């Protein structure tokens, strides 16, 4: 059974149908990518999945339980790191635990071991503005992981980073994902990023947005260093590009 299931979701915004009859699923420990051009309704879909907004039709289930319209079950991470500038990194990261009712000191203790795992050693007492963009995204991902209950939505988490930082953070990300079990749906408009990171890719196209294609990336994980230079990679890319163009 799928961990997370989104079935037949339709959502209007200001009377306009943004997404129509969207059904996607996410298996345990799977990394699924939602690929589409800007404005196709990817973020709207995420708002529905996370429970921040109610869809007109359809429902969302997590581990079999209906969570439609009830936030707090699925972690959500955005392109902006959204770390609170007035909290140290450890306090930012432990915020979800504090919100759940943990004592500040206990929460701090709980998060300590993860700093090493996420490559954030030594940043505990620093403030977000003292860290680079890449490090801030790592901290944001750690925070996301800590309140995820096993499933997370990432909305273009790395798109604000420059190409070089992006490359190294992709490597880091795949590494971390090997260690922690986190089923993830990932939004991006970067085709390379989608092929590089995901197990499966959904193409969301059109207006209103519909799922028009599902592509399985058969390359095993951990991925080869030069996967993005192989013919297989290019083949996937060519296929996706042709599908996206067909839609236009």
């Amino acid at each position, binding site marked *: 059974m799928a961990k997370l299931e989104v079935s037949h979701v339709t959502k209007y915004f200001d009377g306009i149908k943004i997404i129509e009859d969207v059904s996607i699923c996410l298996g345990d420990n799977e990394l699924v990518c939602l690929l589409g051009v800007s404005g196709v309704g990817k973020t709207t879909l995420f*708002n529905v999945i*996370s*429970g*921040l907004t109610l869809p007109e039709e359809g429902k969302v289930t997590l581990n079999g339980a209906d969570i439609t319209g009830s*936030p*707090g*079950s*699925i*972690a*959500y991470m*955005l392109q*902006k790191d*959204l770390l*609170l*500038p*007035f*909290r*140290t990194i450890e306090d930012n990261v432990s*915020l*979800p635990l*504090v*919100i*759940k009712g943990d004592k500040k000191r206990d929460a701090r203790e709980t998060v300590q071991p993860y700093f090493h795992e996420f490559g954030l050693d030594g940043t505990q007492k*620093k*403030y977000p*503005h*003292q860290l680079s963009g890449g490090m801030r995204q790592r901290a944001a991902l750690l925070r996301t992981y800590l*309140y995820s209950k096993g499933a997370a939505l990432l909305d273009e988490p790395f798109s604000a980073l420059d190409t070089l930082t992006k490359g190294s953070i992709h490597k880091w990300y795949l590494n971390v994902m090997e260690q922690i079990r986190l089923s993830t749906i990932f939004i991006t408009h970067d085709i390379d990023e989608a092929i590089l990171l995901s197990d499966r890719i959904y193409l969301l196209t059109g207006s209103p947005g519909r799922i028009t294609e599902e592509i399985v990336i058969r390359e095993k994980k951990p991925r080869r260093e030069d996967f993005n230079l192989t013919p297989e990679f290019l083949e996937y890319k060519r296929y996706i590009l042709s599908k996206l163009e067909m839609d236009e």
Partner: protein
Amino acid sequence: MKRKSRSITSKLPSLAAIGILLIIWQAASVAELVPSYMLPSPGDVVKAFIDDFPLLLENCRITLLEAFAGLFLGVAIGFLMAVAMDCFERLYQALYPIVVVTQTVPTVALAPLLVLWFGYEMTPKVILIVIVTFFPVTVGLLDGFRSADKDMMNLMRSMGATRGQIFRYVKVPGAAGQFFASLRISATYSVVGAVIAEWLGGFGGLGVYMTKVRKAFAFDKMFAVIFLISALSLLLMWGINVLQKKCMPWEEKK
């Protein structure tokens, strides 16, 4: 250490300018360009300050007491109003214009009325200070609360945070900078407000002292008390800066 020496160097020009102004003033008095009963020399002012020190101190105590009471109440009311107006949009629409109108009423015109209503004791002074100090705090905090990042609040909601938690962890610390900026303004208003209120009737305080020395044409004492009032305001601002650094450690590391 390095920081400290830099802060001294950055203050040097303004200290020099003040020194030069004082020298010109003293020279003008010695040369009798202005008759000394109209403009006493800095030396005379210092002498008047020392001579009247016990009296100034006693009046200072009363004024500060009023200023602090008024400022404390004003800030408390400002905070509560900002919180209430942030929580309820209707309340914001209903009250915001009234809050602004209270600021267009000239303080000096209001003071005599307050004296008529509440007598010559402390009450009318404190009320006047509350009226002038709550406004900057309300507006500053409200701005701070309302400028909280919408995505941040969505993220908090997706974490399952309650409105109270969002308020406590995002809005309040986010508005701290604006709060302290407003508090500095309110603090200076509180001292000036107390003095103005005392002009119009009272039994003690720097304003009452001012009225008395003005009637006696004791210009040297007049200047002494004017400088004392600015010194008090400066001291209060400095205290608020210290408090701000304590409350906002994240700003320190920038």
